[in-house]
Every structure is written in C-alpha cells, then in structure tokens.
C-alpha cells in the first residue's frame, strides 16, 4: 500500500497549528447578538416568580426568554441515532430547575457586558425542594427528580421515574450464583469511579443566523451535526428541512460534543429576533453546566478454579446520570458489553444494575463511554484474583482471554475475527521489563518502585445501528472531492479518510479534497463518536471510492471502445491491457462535464456493520511511590495496541499518547466534585486538575497489528480504547508498591499515605 499505513501529516495541520481563523467563534459575524444564560443557584427548585422587565428595558438588550417562551415538547440532547435510547426529559427552559447551573433564562444583547448586566436585573423567586445528591440513595429518596408526566422514552429502557431510575438492565448468560458456589476461589470488591470532565480546550460554542430563504443556519463546534439538526427541529418545533448545521474545525471534543450543549439557546434567540446570535461558554460553564463522565459504583465478583481459569464474572452497577438522562442507559450497558467478552473461559457472566437521576450536572458521553469504568473495576478485580491464585497477572490474562476465532457467552453465535491481545501483553511485558520489575523494588529514601498492568477492549462503531454514507466525485480538473459527515475534532479523521480514498484511486493525498461536515451538503453520518469514524465511515469511503473507480474504468473503456475488463486504471490514466491505447484521468474528467449526454462521475456508498470489532490495549505502568508523602510518580507507561491495520502511524500514536494521558488524569488527578448543597466545586483548571506536561512520565507506544476482515484495509478503531487501561494499571502498581488496593479514583496522595503508613503490602516479590 502506498498511502495507507504512512504517517502523513494532517491535511489541516499547518493552518490550525499556526492560528488561522477556522473555528466557530472566529467565523461568527461581528454584529451577532451575544447570548448569555441565567442559571439556577439551587440544586432542585421550582420557579415561583420571574420578573424580566428591568432586564428587557435595558438599552442594548434584544430579548429575555424564560420557560414561558419555549415550546413545551421534551427532547434529549444526546447525540444518538434516532430513535434515541436517551429519554426525552428536558425542555429548553423549564419551571423546574434540577441542578445548580440549570438554565433559568436566556438573554441576548448587543454585547457581552450588556448581556451580563441584564442577567443581574432578572429577579427570580424559587420554591426550593429537597435535592437528591447521593446517587446511592437516589432510589429511596422522597424527591422525584423528574416529576413530570410528559417525559417520554422512545422504547423501554427500564425506567421507573418515581424511583429516580432512568434505566434498569440485566444481561446474564449461564447461572452466575450456581456457578459461583462451584468455584473454589471467589473474590469480591466494590469500586467507585468518579465523574470526569472532558476539558477540551475549545469550550462549547455556536452561532447562527437566518439565510436568504429564512432557514436557520447553525455553525457549531459539534461532533454530531445531523443529530443537532434533529434535536433543534424537535426542541424548537420547526421542520428539520428549515435547519442547516455546519461544523467548522473543532477544538477537541472527547465525547462532550456528542451531546448538544449550547445550540438550542442561541438558535431560539435567532428564531425569536430574526438576528444572528452567538453563544460561547466560559470555562466555568463548561465545567459546571454541560456534561461529565458518569460516576459509578461497580461491585465485581469473580469465580475461578484452582488452575486459574476465570469461570464467573458478575458485575453489579449503579450509575449516576445527574439531572438529565443523556446517554444514561447506553453508557451503562457498555460497562458490561466491553468487559464480559474479554475473558471467555467462563461458565456464567452477568452485568446488571440501575442508572439513577440525581440533582447534579448531567452526565453524558466521554471517551471510553462506560468501558473505562468497567475496565477499572474488572481489571482491578482480575489483579486481585491473580494475587489470591498466586499467578502472575500477565499469565492469568494470557490463559483466560478471548482469542481470534473464539466466541464468548454473551456473543455465543459470533466469533472474534481479529485480536493480537496476547502479543500485546507479551510485547508490553518486554517493554516495561515486567519480569525484572514485578512486583516492586525498594529504593532509597523511603521510596518504592512497582509495576502494574491491565488490558481492555472497546468497539468500532455501534453494531447494527450507526450507518455512514460517503460520496466522492471526480471534479472537472481531474481531482476528487470526498464528502463525508463525520467530524474530525482534531483526531485527523479527515486525513485518514482521504488516505483510504487515495489508496483505492491510486492517487496522491493532495488530489483529494475532503469536505465535512454540513447537513445541507454532506451525506448522512451519525458523527464522530463510538469509535466509529475509521471503521464505519472509513468503510463507506472505501466503498464509495471503489464505486467511483469502477465508473472511471467503465467510462475510460467506453472512450477507448473496448470492454471494461480489457482496461486498467492506474490513477493517472485508463489503459488497455494490451497497452496500445490510453485516456488520461484529466481528459476523462474534462470530457465528463462538457457537451451533451455527459455525466459527472460520482461514487456513493452507505455502510453499517452488523458487528463492532474490538480494538485491544495492554497497558503497563511503573510508578515510584514516596511512602513518607504518599506521592505517586508515574515513571513509565507502556501501551501496546491492537487497532487492526494502522492507517496512519503518526496520528495513531498521538491518539494513544493523548488517551493514555487522559487516563492518567482519571487515575491520579481528576474528579468532578460537589459540595453538600450540590454546587460544583471543580469549575476551573485551578480546582480541576488535568495532567500537565510534568505529570505523565514517559509513555511508550507500540502497535501489534491484527487484520480485521470487516474493516477498511483491516482497520479497527483507536480513539476510545486508549483511555481505559491507565486507571487499573496504575492502581495495580500502587498496590504492588504500598499495599493500597485503590477501590476509588483518583488515587490521591492522601489515600496512598494512609495505606503506606499502615503497612507495606502488595504481593510477595
């Protein structure tokens, strides 16, 4: 292959790196109204009176909107394929406010200062209700977070609204309780994973205007243009045909922008006033009024026989979705879906539990999407089991993990088509120096070094649901335009999709213009989430390019007056096999747009997969723990990745490094915290610490390619799977160092210090 597998720089790289104005706020009209939101100071309350008269009278204020001004039709902001599994449980503004920061009023003014002044002039009286703040007691709490009876679910997700249960789920294969009784070794542990913030550098923002036909045009930093169009149509009660959503360059997403955040507010202003409007969230709003990762409690029980085969996996969970149910049921189901298949020598497996509403900021999609939480719990439990069985943790995994060609209890009728996880583990052991370093080495000055490990899987797209289309046309100048609706948010997906098209068409990367995404122009794509773009959109691109190639061959053969099977297309020309005649692509392209009876050549394809092939990672951490202070220093992280064929090694490597660092943040630093009134405490980069460049040690990335037969050129996904291993691997290393079995995240120096002070533990060397 000439283009696929090469480390091309991103096609937009130089422009975005050097600060060119290509992001949402850079493109907003200078005279756009500035939209700001008045927010609830209470975690749970009903608005009893709201007086906007003084704000409305202020010079420069264009409109002040309250719950009285919005359509009374509930919707979800979750970016999911229709019909969305997330409940329709919100209005643009509502009489009831459900968390500190929930929207109370929308103000639009000529500038930011005026809008801010107007916010202070709005008088609101509240009847404050008893808030549900502890997710572990939400089901028994006398308050009902969603008392309204017009809340709608598209289908049964196990909602018990009066008990604050959004979704109740159970997946079981075999007899878990019966098999556990047969197991000579059983371990049980309950884990808590915290809410995490996306903390993408570009905060949420959108601007909009009415075009020359009066249609609403929304330019938004979003991962999901087509879903945003559908959300807006429902929330604003206007036909989707009256809405156009455009995605410019995005300054990071990480799943945050898979949930609508700001679009409905500024769009409503434009509809009410007819004027352009923009909304830009500050960092405080981004931390406190959007979404986070779902915090969870996960109780894991593992049963094993004495030869070290895991026979039972049981995970019972509880997930906190906060005030609204965006991605509530699906994130939760992924906890089980991406853990139970990993070890397949099992006789019974189960995942069950509930997702509950609380009066906190809603949770949503965040890279990993439940697999991250599940991996921490399962892998921590597997490490505990290894110690109890006195088996090396790497060996325990090697003898239990699912292999190519095998099935598992929850997917009994399908087999795994690609995996190099065993090789990933072996390679990782070698790179970290596992045999020499496991479990720990005492150092001078009360310090100890130790290693730990974890493995994980994710998916590639949503099987049977998410479907992408691609279109590629031969332009009059002999170049190509590739139209897709996926949303490169910095990952480089536009570039790797162009690489795939260029490979099929035997052309150079700069011959492919990539256009994405604009709902008026792009073919349908759910957007970039669920690790879908390389695999699902990528396959659509390959098929569309093949379709175009076939047409080029047919057209060329026709012009050469031979049968299509008597010619080849080499990227530059269609030539007869005999080599006696040829027509250049340039000429073919020119002729396709001149004269009567011509047809411009356009390749089309739509692709959806009935499966979601898992990428895998084996992660290894080496830490140095200071027993006197509890400080954990990460020295080295080794991530060995099976993402099938690597389409672009440079971009894949950066995806791994970035994901590992976010995982390090989850392991050691990051936590969305609230006070006892439900007020978010971590609303800035001062209170919410993301890793800086001194916090990460060295990261070694290696790829062990497999070949996924259902993927483009054998590729699987990479975007999400890479965030999953750091938390359990670092927790394992810390345990091996000082004996703290971290059952909650982040692993702070306080927790480590207390454990280190009490004993020196971990498995025997």
């Amino acid at each position, binding site marked *: 292959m000439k283009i696929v597998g090469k480390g091309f720089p991103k096609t937009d790289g130089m422009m975005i790196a050097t600060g060119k104005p290509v992001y949402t706020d850079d493109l907003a009209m200078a005279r756009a109204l500035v939209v700001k939101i008045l927010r609830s100071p209470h975690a749970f309350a009903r608005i009893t009176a709201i007086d906007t008269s003084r704000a409305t009278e202020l010079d420069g204020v264009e409109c002040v909107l309250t719950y009285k001004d919005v359509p009374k039709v509930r919707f979800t902001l979750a970016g999911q394929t229709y019909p969305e599994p997330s409940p329709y449980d919100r209005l643009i503004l509502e009489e009831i406010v459900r968390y500190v920061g929930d929207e109370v009023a929308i103000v639009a003014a000529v500038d930011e200062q005026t809008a801010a002044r107007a916010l202070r002039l709005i008088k609101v009286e509240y009847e404050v209700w008893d808030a549900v703040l502890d997710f572990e007691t939400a089901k028994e709490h006398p308050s009902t977070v969603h008392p309204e009876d017009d809340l709608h679910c598209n289908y049964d997700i196990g909602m018990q609204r009066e008990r604050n249960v959004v979704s109740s789920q159970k997946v079981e294969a075999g007899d878990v309780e019966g098999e556990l009784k047969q197991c000579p070794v059983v371990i049980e542990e309950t884990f808590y994973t915290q809410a995490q913030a996306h903390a993408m550098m570009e905060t949420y923002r959108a601007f909009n205007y009415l075009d020359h036909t009066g249609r609403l045009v929304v330019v938004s930093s979003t991962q999901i243009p087509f879903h945003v169009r559908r959300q807006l149509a429902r929330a604003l009660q206007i036909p989707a045909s009256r809405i156009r959503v455009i995605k410019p360059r995005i300054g990071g997403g990480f799943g945050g922008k898979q949930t609508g955040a700001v679009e409905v507010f500024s769009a409503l202003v434009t509809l009410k006033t007819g004027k352009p409007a923009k909304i830009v969230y500050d960092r405080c709003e981004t931390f406190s009024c959007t979404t986070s990762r779902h915090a969870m409690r996960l109780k894991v029980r593992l049963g094993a026989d004495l030869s070290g085969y895991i026979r039972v996996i049981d995970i019972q969970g509880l997930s906190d979705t906060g005030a609204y149910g965006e991605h509530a049921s699906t994130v939760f189901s992924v906890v089980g879906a991406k853990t139970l298949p990993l070890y397949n020598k099992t006789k019974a497996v189960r995942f069950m539990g509930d997702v509950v509403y609380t009066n906190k900021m809603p949770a949503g999609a965040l890279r990993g999407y439940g697999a991250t939480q599940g991996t921490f719990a399962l892998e921590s439990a597997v490490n505990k089991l290894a110690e109890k069985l006195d088996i090396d943790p790497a060996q325990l995994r090697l003898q239990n993990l699912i292999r190519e060609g095998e099935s598992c209890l929850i997917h009994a009728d399908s087999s795994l088509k690609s995996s190099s996880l065993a090789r990933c583990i072996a390679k990782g052991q070698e790179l970290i120096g596992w045999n020499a370093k496991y479990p720990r080495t005492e150092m001078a000055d009360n310090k100890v070094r130790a290693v730990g490990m974890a493995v994980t899987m994710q998916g590639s797209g949503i099987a049977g649901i998410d479907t992408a289309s691609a279109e590629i046309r031969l332009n009059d100048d002999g170049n190509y335009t590739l139209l897709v609706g996926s949303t490169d948010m910095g990952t480089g997906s536009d570039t790797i999709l162009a690489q795939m098209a260029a490979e099929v068409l035997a052309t150079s990367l700069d011959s492919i213009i990539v256009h994405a995404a604009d709902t008026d122009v792009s073919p349908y794509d759910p957007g970039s989430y669920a690790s879908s773009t390389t695999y699902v959109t990528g396959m659509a691109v390959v098929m569309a390019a093949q379709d175009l190639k076939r047409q080029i061959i047919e057209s060329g053969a026709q012009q050469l007056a031979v049968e299509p099977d008597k010619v080849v297309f080499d990227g530059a020309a269609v030539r007869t096999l005999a080599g006696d005649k040829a027509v250049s692509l340039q000429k073919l392209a020119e002729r396709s747009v001149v004269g009567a009876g011509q047809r411009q050549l356009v390749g089309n394809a739509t692709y959806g997969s009935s499966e979601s092939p898992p990428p895998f990672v084996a992660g290894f951490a080496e830490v140095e723990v200071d027993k006197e202070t509890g400080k954990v220093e990460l020295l080295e992280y080794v991530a060995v990745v099976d993402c099938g064929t690597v389409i672009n090694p440079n971009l894949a490597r950066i995806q791994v490094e970035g994901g590992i660092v976010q995982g390090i943040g989850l392991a050691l630093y990051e936590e969305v915290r609230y006070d006892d009134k439900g007020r978010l405490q971590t609303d800035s980069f001062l209170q919410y610490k993301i890793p800086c460049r001194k916090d990460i040690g060295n*990261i070694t990335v290696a790829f062990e390619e497999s070949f996924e037969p259902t993927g483009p050129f054998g590729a699987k996904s990479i975007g999400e799977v890479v965030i999953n291993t750091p938390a359990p691997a670092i927790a394992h290393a810390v345990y091996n160092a000082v004996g703290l079995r971290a059952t909650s995240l982040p692993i702070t120096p306080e927790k480590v210090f207390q454990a280190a002070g009490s004993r020196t533990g971990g498995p025997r060397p």
Partner: protein
Amino acid sequence: MQINVMINNKQVSLQVEPGEFLAETLRKHGLLSVRRGCDTSNCGLCTVWIEGKPTLSCAVLAFRVDGKKITTIEGVAKEAGEFAEFLVAEGAEQCGFCSPGFIMTVLAMKRELPNPTEAEIVHYLIGNLCRCSGYLGQLRAVKKFLGVGLI
C-alpha cells in the same frame, strides 16, 4: 480610553474599555489566533509576547500595554511555520486550539534558553495545557526543532 501600541510591528491606536483584557482587545483587532481557554489565567492558550516576553494576555488589562510592543503568532508567522512543520510532522497539533499559544511560548524559549535540557524545556512550557496530544509529541517536535538530542 485610547492606547497606542506596536502590534506585530505596526503602530496602532485602539479604543479600549477600562476593564478590558488584552486578549479581548487583540481578538477585536482581528488577531483571532489569540484564544481564551480558561477564566483563571492558567491554560496558556492566550499567550502573546509583551516586549518579547511570553505573557498571558487574558491577565493583562489592555490599558497597561499602552506604549508597549505586542507580538502574536501572526507577527512571527515565518518562524512559527518553521516550528509548526515539526509539530505537524508528529501529529501533535491534534485539535490545534492550543497550538498558537504553545508556539509563542516555544519561540520565546528558543530566544531565552540557548541549549535547554529536556527538563528545562518541560519546565519552561509547563503553563501551556493541552488536552489532546499527551504532550510527548509536542516535546519530540520541540527537540527536533531545537536540534536537542533526538528521541
């Protein structure tokens, strides 16, 4: 109030509000590489040079720079492009939103530290946050740009 500043080697007079920060002034002046990433002056996105020193423009009141020389990435485009080639070759720009501020700090470091060690590089750049790249690709790019011991 009016201030007179040298922005990217052009002398300009600008009307600013008393409470206006330089980051906002520069954006209003059309320098859209200058971005805000936080409300607390600790993300580094808005880094520009004031009299050649890398400074968070979100933390400097506009009237304070009256008479001073301001440089944004638009003012050092050629050199920024030279470094960006290394950054992009690593794929380490990723979303690109933090890149202009990061590059301004890198170019200032190049002037300030003649032969930095890896530890000095990391320390100098510590105030520039990045959520995408995981930092190591940025470090590889900086070391190659400066010709410091290739990784």
